[in-house]
């Protein structure tokens, strides 16, 4: 997983490559948790341009990040979603729940 973070004031952007599935979602959850505990960002943007695939565990992780950001009064946005990932999100209605740019 090629993880990159960019911080600009209270806005942070995270991008990574590969897939987001039951095989790596816990690892990613830890990384995001560590990132958020050490950075007081109000807006977190996930750039999914290089994420080719997501399963229900990966979707669960995205929901949990959105919940965390909402609880701390922040915003969670997703950008550059691939067609495959968008179609999978759509199956559960999450394409409308997430703020996808």
């Amino acid at each position, binding site marked *: 997983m090629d993880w990159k973070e960019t911080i600009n004031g209270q806005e942070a952007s995270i991008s990574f490559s590969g897939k987001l599935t*039951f095989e790596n979602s816990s690892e990613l959850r830890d990384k995001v948790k560590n990132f958020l505990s050490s950075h007081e960002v109000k807006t977190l943007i996930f750039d999914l341009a290089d994420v080719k695939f997501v399963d229900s565990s990966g979707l669960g992780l995205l929901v949990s990040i959105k919940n965390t950001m909402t609880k701390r009064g922040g915003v969670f946005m997703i950008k550059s979603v691939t067609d495959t990932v968008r179609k999978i999100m759509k199956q559960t209605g999450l394409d409308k729940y997430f703020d996808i740019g």
Partner: protein
Amino acid sequence: MSEIRFQAKIQLSTSRSSDTGVFCPAMNGKRGSLSPELPTAVGEDGFFREISADSPYRNEARLLGLSCEHSQEVLLSKVNGFLDEAAFDTAILDAVLGSRSCMIDALMRITERVVDRLPYIDEENRGYVFLFLNEAISNAVYHGNLKIPKECRTKSSFKEYEKEMHEYQPSLLALRVTLRIVFDPVHFEMQVTDSGDGFDFKKRLRRNHPPAPDQESGRGIFILKKVADAITFYDKGKTLYLRKRWRN
């Protein structure tokens, strides 16, 4: 610890023979074998290839008794070589694996190799194939075999959990998942059996709406039901069968 090794068989042909009775489902009154016939002979490097003129599957490769210590790269290069030399539009992949991340990884990577060579599987359908496979395998391993509580699944990675189990409950990691995947130019079919106690699948299949959007889990079977053309469980929920027709 009773060790379980990864075993697989890949059968390729240019047309799906009607009398091979690929398998299942109870839907058409025909029930296939839940335990694919896997070979007993073991090659030195764990790979054995067979071409039989009599078989409806003109090309057959068997991946035998691989442990987590074997190099997957060597295995995958042999699988690639096997697939490169065959002309096929139908592939059947049988596999038996333990509840180990290295074996799940081997299965995923072998399946990727097969899918890459089937021209009728476009990007969208490829996504659905791996969605089916991921949901089925994670259900079989997490829920069926290891019964990992939801709280633990979100707290530690599967590899960390596996490490702990290796120390405290190694026998659980030997619990099997048996799987058959069929690709032909018209359909995708999959059957996955775990070694657990089953679950109330009727209740899960009755659900016609996704969980609330802020819920972090509970989408797996819903997604399978939504995307597949047919889905059913057998054996108290220990076996999942699903089918999808390609729509390009």
